[in-house]
């Protein structure tokens, strides 16, 4: 498969990434500003007032009018251009994305330039925007799986990496319009911004337009994040539910560390796909649960493996025991057949990503953020081909699992053995 990957850098530090995808009518663009929820913690000083949720509230307010369009006009212009738009906040980034029929790209880029560079931050819109964030927080209270994973992140990661991007009700209630204004001034900056585009695309036209829309934007340098303490290793969140939710986390290398390939392959053997060990042992053989899985979550410098299952209270202890046993017994037991299946699934995933302009734009931006470059499909496939059971086992042997963070949400706590051993 011939691939056309492009990169360019504007003088102010904005990176442009592009891939022409043959056979599609659409194009997707995504803007990633280094203004994620980590910046909430940078804002804590000097007043020491915690502002968890500020990045999220800022994202919400930025969409409520920009340039010469008010909130309704802005949404109407995106909708009328047939842009399927979205806005989100992760730990590292505030992101705005849109997928559309390719002829609408130039018009939509002008709108996005307004959102990023000329948000109105209308004071009249501040309270409604805050209410939206608070409503979303109330909604997540009713999602036991989401609450379990939030508690796991908080317990496992050093502060501020485990803080919820969506914010906390207490902090969001205390935020002020001036906080948003300050956040925009300090963090909505061109430095380290990634703009990624994939689909039916004229790269030269795109870069010229981006230069005229963003080229004269000058900003200031980034501020460092200071790491704090970790939470408790075992944590029970009392909740009146029929099911007990179990979540486990342990340290693995971040994506930019070459060893992450071994770590994620081992994780896929453990909990990816319906032939994985967790699915087979917990659900298929014992019928203990409906959902059980393990996955990988990476930031630039830290990463975690996370496993989850939800099951009836009286079967939760057995579920936890089986999960811990499977995690502990992985080293030394991975087979070639298991690795072949992991490779086949990963290969399909990589190739099928080429069918979605939005998935490609997002994936390129992620690779750039973590690696400072985009790997071609051929290179990604070659890395998979070169992966061996020996290299995974070697990595597992060199990096024995010593500590697992365990979170339960439900009526009763469970017993966690002192040591993780097969």
């Amino acid at each position, binding site marked *: 498969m011939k691939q056309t990957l492009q990169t360019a850098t504007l003088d102010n530090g904005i990176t442009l990434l592009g891939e022409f995808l043959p056979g599609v009518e659409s194009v997707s663009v995504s803007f990633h500003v280094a203004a994620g929820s980590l910046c909430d913690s940078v804002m804590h000083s000097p007043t020491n007032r915690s502002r968890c949720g500020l990045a999220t509230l800022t994202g919400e307010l930025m969409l409520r009018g920009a340039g010469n369009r008010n909130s309704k006009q802005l949404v109407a212009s995106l909708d009328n251009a047939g842009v399927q738009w979205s806005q989100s906040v992760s730990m590292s980034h505030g992101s705005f994305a849109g997928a559309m029929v390719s002829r609408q790209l130039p018009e939509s880029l002008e709108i996005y330039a307004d959102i990023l560079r000329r948000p109105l931050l209308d004071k009249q819109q501040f309270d409604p925007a805050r209410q939206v964030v608070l409503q979303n927080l109330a*909604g997540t209270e009713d999602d036991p799986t989401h609450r379990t994973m939030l508690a796991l992140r908080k317990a496992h990661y050093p502060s501020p990496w485990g803080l919820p991007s969506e914010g906390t009700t207490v902090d969001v209630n205390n935020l002020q319009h001036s906080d948003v204004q300050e956040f925009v001034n300090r963090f909505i900056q061109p430095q380290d911004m990634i703009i990624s585009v994939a689909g039916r695309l004229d790269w030269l036209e795109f870069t010229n337009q981006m230069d005229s829309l963003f080229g004269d934007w000058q900003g200031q340098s980034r501020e460092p994040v200071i790491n704090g303490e970790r939470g408790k290793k075992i944590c029970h969140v009392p909740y009146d539910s029929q099911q007990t939710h179990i979540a486990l986390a342990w340290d693995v290398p971040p994506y930019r560390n070459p060893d992450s390939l071994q770590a994620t392959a081992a994780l896929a053997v453990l909990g990816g796909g319906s032939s994985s060990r967790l699915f087979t042992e917990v659900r298929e053989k014992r019928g203990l649960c409906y959902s059980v899985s393990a996955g990988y979550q990476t930031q630039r410098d830290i990463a975690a493996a996370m496993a989850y299952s939800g099951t009836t209270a009286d079967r939760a202890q057995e579920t936890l025991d089986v999960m811990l046993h499977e995690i502990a017994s992985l080293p030394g037991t991975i087979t070639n057949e298991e690795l072949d299946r992991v490779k086949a*699934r990963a290969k399909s995933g990589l190739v099928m990503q080429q069918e979605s302009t939005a998935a490609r734009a997002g994936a390129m931006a992620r690779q750039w953020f973590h690696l400072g470059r985009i790997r071609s499909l051929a290179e990604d496939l070659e890395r998979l081909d070169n992966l061996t059971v020996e290299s995974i086992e070697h990595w597992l042997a060199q990096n024995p699992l010593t500590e697992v963070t365990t979170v339960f949400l439900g009526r009763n706590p469970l017993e966690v053995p002192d040591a993780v051993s097969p």
Partner: protein
Amino acid sequence: MQFRHEQLPNGLDIIAEVSESAHSASLGFFVKTGARDENDSISGVSHFLEHMVFKGTDTLSAEDINLRFDSMGASANAFTSEEDTVYYAAVLPEKQHDAIELLAAMMRPALREDDFITEKQVILEEIKMYDDQPPFGADDQCRALFFKDHPLARSVLGTESSIQALPVEAMRSYHEERYSADNLVLAASGAVDFDSLMASARQLCSPWQSVSHCNRKVSFSTTPSKAITDIITRDQAALEYAVRMTPGPAEDNSDRFAAKLLAVVLGDDSGSRLYWDLVDSGKAEHAACHHHDFLDAGIFVTQLSCEPEATQALLDRIIEIYKAATKGLTVSEVDQARNKLLSRVVLAGERPRQRLFSLGLEWSHLGRYRSVGDDLATLDTISREDLHRILCEWQLTELSTTVLAGPLQKD
């Protein structure tokens, strides 16, 4: 895009939308069976059977099936609804035959009793999982009250007691009757080799028997006699969740697309009347309107989640918003909604996996093929007047069935 269709002598339809530019092939068996084809004594059997289909055949174990799907790098799954049970796999083109071979084998499952007993526990866990999640059963309860004795009133999951009481023999006879060759459609989309697909189907599916079926359609009175409200109390919930249903066009009604466009104008996730009034203002966590169509009935479903004490006022407000809409929609809001839908159709058309479901369900229900171009052309012909006519005809403001779930108590 090229559409192909052939039928085996036993009545199995094979359809495909072949795309030159796709990188993958999506394949699926669409079984014309779901909750509406059940009765009280087998409530939940369609969905339970969907799980059992993954537990193996006379020559394959559950583990074999999981291993084979993962070995071919397939993204495979299944779902059950009121009217359909669908099994599908997305694979790289060179795995087309392997995927069909496995899916076809699965359509004739062993339904072993020990697997049945183990899987019953998984189904009960799934029921409990949904019971812990919003909208805490309000959707099932609302459909039950709205459709009363019509088959669409039935729950897809069934209940804990119906699943506990279900014997394996009942599932076996249900399977024999419902998974008859002429009650299935084999659909494919993307980088499909249709000639090879036909060869696989002839080899693998020709022995399947067909049994005759009765008409699944049951007439549904679209004029409710009275408004119904019910409350499911969940003390631990933070928000109140409301589901409101009123009648709408069925799938064979020529207003089906217009009804969907109207729902986007009124209650899309963003940029709609409900959105600007209730969500953008922060009054509700979520407020949306959707149109769902079935073989013989349609519904407009309004969903609301908000602080419990605000529920009644916001439900009243929604009626006011719908009333205001009957007095006139603007050309610009209809065009805005149309542009959104057009774009969604084009983008979904680029993904074989998404096309598979439109393709398979359309054929399964209506026995016809609609291309992306057909959908775009239909959307272009819908006028503002059509939407006004639907608003007058279907009376979203009138007698509805509403179920609330959350901290609110019954009076």
